[in-house]
C-alpha cells in the first residue's frame, strides 16, 4: 500500500503546476475578455497540453490521451487548487460522452469542439413533472414533420437553462412502442420561439433550476443522437462517465473541515462549541464516515488504475455522500443555533462564508436530485447484494 505518487507522476504534477502558474488566471489583454471567453481560451491551451478533454479524439477537439486515472486525479486537484476551468461538468459531461460514443461524424465535428471548450453551453432535458425517478414514463413528444422534429411538452429541473445555448433531451418519438423503446435523444437550439424557459425558485431562494416549455419547437431531423427509439440506451450510456470518486470524497472532507471551523467559532453555553462534549462526539462520529469515504475514494481510484471493476462500493458513493451531507447539515444547523432563525436569501446572503442555511436545505435536495435515495437503495440491494427485484418495479418494467 502506498498513498503517495510515483516519481513519474510527481514530475507530471510539476509540469501541470508550471503550466498553471503561467496560464491561469489569464494575463494582460486577455484578462479583459469575458469570463466564458477566458475559460474557452484557457481550455484550448490546456487541451493542447493534454490536460483536458483527454478521452476525446483530436479530430473532435480533444487531446486524445490514454486513460490514466492518476494523471486525471493530479490534473483535477491541481486545476482545482488554482480554480482554473476544468472539463465541463455534469450535465454537459454527459452530453460529451454521449456524442463521443453515439454521435454521427457530423455531430461530433460540429458540436464537440465548442462544447469541450465551454463556448457552447448545454442544459439537460430529462425530468418532467410527473416523471421523477421514472424516466421511462416521459411524455414530451417529438414528431418528424418533413425534415424537422417538432417538439411539444415540458421539462423540469433543468439547470442552467437560462444561460445555455442548446438543450439535449429525451422525448417520446413512438407513442406505440413499449415505454423504454419509444424514446429518442434530440439536440435542440434553445433560442427559438417554440421554447420558453421559466426559473423555478427553490426553498432557499436560489433558482438553479428551470422549467422548459416546448410548443411546436423545432430541430433538424439529423439532430438526433442514435436512432429513433434508442434514446433510453443512449442516455444511460452517458451516466457511466460521471465517476470521480476521489474528487467527490475530497469535497466531503473539505466540507467537514469547514464544519470543524464552524464548531470552533460558534458558541454553546458561553464556550466555543468545539469544547462541548456532545459536539466533539458528533464531530468524531462524522469524521468516521468522512474518513471512510475519503479512503474509499483512494481504494476506488486504485481499482480504476488497475482496471478492476468497482463492484458494490461503486454504487454506494452517491448515497454515502448524501448521507454525510445530511449529517453535516444537521450538525451545522445545531451549531448555528439561534442564527438558524435568520435566513438571508438571494442578494442578502453573506459573501465568502459557507452558507449553512442553504446547505441545510440543499442537503434535502441531495437525496432527491437524480434518483432518490430509495432508488439507490434498490440498486444496491438488487445489483450489489443480489436480492430479487421488487414486484412494483417488475410491474413498472412491463
Amino acid at each position, binding site marked *: 500500500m502506498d498513498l503517495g505518487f510515483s516519481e513519474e507522476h510527481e514530475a507530471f504534477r510539476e509540469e501541470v503546476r508550471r503550466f498553471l502558474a503561467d496560464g491561469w488566471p489569464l494575463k494582460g489583454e486577455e484578462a479583459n475578455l469575458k469570463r466564458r471567453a477566458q475559460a474557452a481560451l484557457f481550455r484550448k491551451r490546456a487541451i493542447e497540453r493534454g490536460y483536458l478533454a483527454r478521452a476525446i479524439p483530436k479530430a473532435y477537439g480533444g487531446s486524445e490521451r490514454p486513460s490514466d486515472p492518476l494523471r486525471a486525479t493530479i490534473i483535477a486537484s491541481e486545476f482545482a487548487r488554482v480554480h482554473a476551468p476544468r472539463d465541463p461538468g455534469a450535465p454537459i459531461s454527459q452530453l460529451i460522452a454521449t456524442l463521443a460514443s453515439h454521435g454521427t461524424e457530423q455531430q461530433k465535428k460540429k458540436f464537440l469542439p465548442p462544447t469541450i471548450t465551454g463556448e457552447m453551453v448545454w442544459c439537460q432535458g430529462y*425530468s418532467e*413533472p*410527473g*416523471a*421523477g*425517478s*421514472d424516466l421511462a*414514463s416521459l411524455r414530451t413528444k417529438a414528431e418528424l414533420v418533413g425534415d424537422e422534429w417538432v417538439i411539444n411538452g415540458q421539462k*423540469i*429541473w433543468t439547470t442552467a437553462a437560462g444561460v445555455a445555448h442548446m438543450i439535449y433531451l429525451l422525448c417520446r418519438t413512438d407513442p406505440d412502442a413499449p415505454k423504454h423503446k419509444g424514446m429518442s435523444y434530440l439536440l435542440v437550439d434553445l433560442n427559438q420561439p417554440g421554447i420558453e424557459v421559466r426559473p*423555478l*425558485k*427553490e*426553498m432557499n*431562494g436560489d433558482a438553479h433550476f428551470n422549467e422548459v416549455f416546448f410548443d411546436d419547437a423545432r430541430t433538424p431531423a439529423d439532430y438526433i443522437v442514435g436512432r429513433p427509439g434508442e434514446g433510453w440506451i443512449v442516455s444511460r450510456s452517458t451516466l457511466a462517465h460521471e465517476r470521480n470518486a476521489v474528487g467527490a470524497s475530497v469535497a466531503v472532507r473539505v466540507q467537514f473541515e469547514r464544519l470543524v471551523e464552524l464548531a470552533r467559532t460558534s*458558541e454553546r453555553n458561553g464556550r466555543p462549541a468545539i469544547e462541548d462534549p*456532545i459536539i466533539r462526539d458528533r464531530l468524531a462520529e462524522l469524521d468516521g464516515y468522512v474518513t471512510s469515504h475519503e479512503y474509499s475514494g483512494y481504494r476506488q481510484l486504485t481499482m480504476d488504475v488497475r482496471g478492476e471493476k468497482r463492484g458494490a462500493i461503486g454504487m454506494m458513493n452517491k448515497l454515502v455522500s448524501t448521507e454525510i451531507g445530511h449529517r453535516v447539515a444537521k450538525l451545522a*444547523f*445545531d451549531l448555528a*443555533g*439561534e442564527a*438558524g*432563525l*435568520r*435566513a*438571508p*436569501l438571494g442578494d*442578502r446572503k453573506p459573501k465568502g462564508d459557507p452558507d449553512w*442555511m442553504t446547505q441545510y*436545505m440543499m442537503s*434535502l*435536495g441531495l*437525496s*432527491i*436530485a437524480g434518483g*432518490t*435515495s*430509495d432508488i439507490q*437503495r434498490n440498486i444496491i440491494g438488487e445489483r450489489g447484494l443480489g436480492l430479487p427485484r*421488487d414486484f*412494483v*418495479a417488475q*410491474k*413498472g*418494467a*412491463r
Partner: protein
Amino acid sequence: MDFGLSEEQLLLQQTIDRFLEAECPSTRLHEIFDGDEAVDGSLWRGMIELGLGGLTIPEPYGGAGLGLIDLALASETLGRRAAPGPFLGHALAGVAIALGGNEEQRERWLPSLATGRCLATVALAEAGGRWDPARWQARVQGGRVTGGKAWVPCAHAADLLVVGVEGGGLALVERTAAGVEIAAVDGVDRTRRLDDVTLENAPCDVLERSRDVGGRVRDAGLCLVAADAFGGATRCIEMAVDHANTREQFGVTIGHFQAIKHRLATMSVEVEPSRALFWYAAHAWDAVPEDRQRAASLAKAHITDRFMQTARDAVEIHGGMGFTWEGDMQIWLKRAMFDRMFLGSPAAHRERVARVSGW
C-alpha cells in the same frame, strides 16, 4: 381521570381549522409568506373574531377565561395550517399580563388585547442565546428600561411589548414610547416575522403581582410552540400521505412502495404519541405546578425535534416539488426551523429537563 378533549375544545379546534381552510388556503398563505407585511390585517381580524385574542384572558376582562391547554389546542390548529400572524406573541402577552399584572394593569390592557384593539407581543430573549429568564440583562431603573431584546415576534406591528428584564421579571413597554427602536430580522419563517428591539431608557411598567412571572410565561411559550410543532408535524404527515396516494411512479402510486409506506408509518409513530405530551405539558402548566418546568421543556424539545425531522421527511417524500419555493412544504419546514430554535434549542431544554429532574 379524563385525559381527553371536551366537546368545546374539539369545537374550538374545528372552528379555527375551518376558518383557516377557508381564509388562508395555500394560495393566500404563499401571498402572505412572500409579502412585506408582518401582519395580514384581515386574517388577524378574523382570528380575533374567533376569540383568539383572549382565550386565556379572564372573563371579567373580556376574555374566555380558558386554560393554557385551550390556548395550546388553538396553537396546534394554527400550526397545522401554518397560520401566519402575531398569535404567538399576542397570546403570551395576554398570559403574562393576566398572571403578573396588578388590577390597574389588567384593566388597562387585557380587554383591548381580547378585542384585538391592542396588538401585543413578548420580548423575552436577548442576543447570544439568552432565552433563560435567569440570564436576561435588560435593566429597569426609575420606571425606565434599557437593554437589547432579540427575536421578538411581530414587534414592528405591535402596540405593546411585554419585555423580559433582569431577575426574570416582565415589564410593559409601549411600542411608540421614546427610546424604543425596532429593526426587522430577516427571518427564515415568514409566517411569524421577528424583530430586534433596542430599549434606551424607555418608559416601562413592571408586572409584579406574581413570582417567577418571566419563567412561567416562558414555560407557557414552550407549550404553545410544542403544540404548534405538533400541529405542523401532523399536517406534514397528512400532506405526505396525500402525495403518496396521488403521485405515480413506475405505474403505481408511490404509497405502494414499502419504503415510502414504512417511512410514513415511522413518521406517524414518532409524532402521534407526542400529542399526549403537549397536552400534558399545558395541563401541568394549568394544574400540576410541580411538574410544569420539566413537562414544558420536555414537550418543546421532543416535539420540535420531531417536527423538524418530519418536515424533512415530508419534503423528501414530495420529491423535487417539495423542494421548491412555490410548493407548500417549504413553509412547514421553515415553521419547524422556527419552532425548534425559538425560546431555546432542544438540546438546551433537554439539559433543563435533566436539571429539574434532579439528575
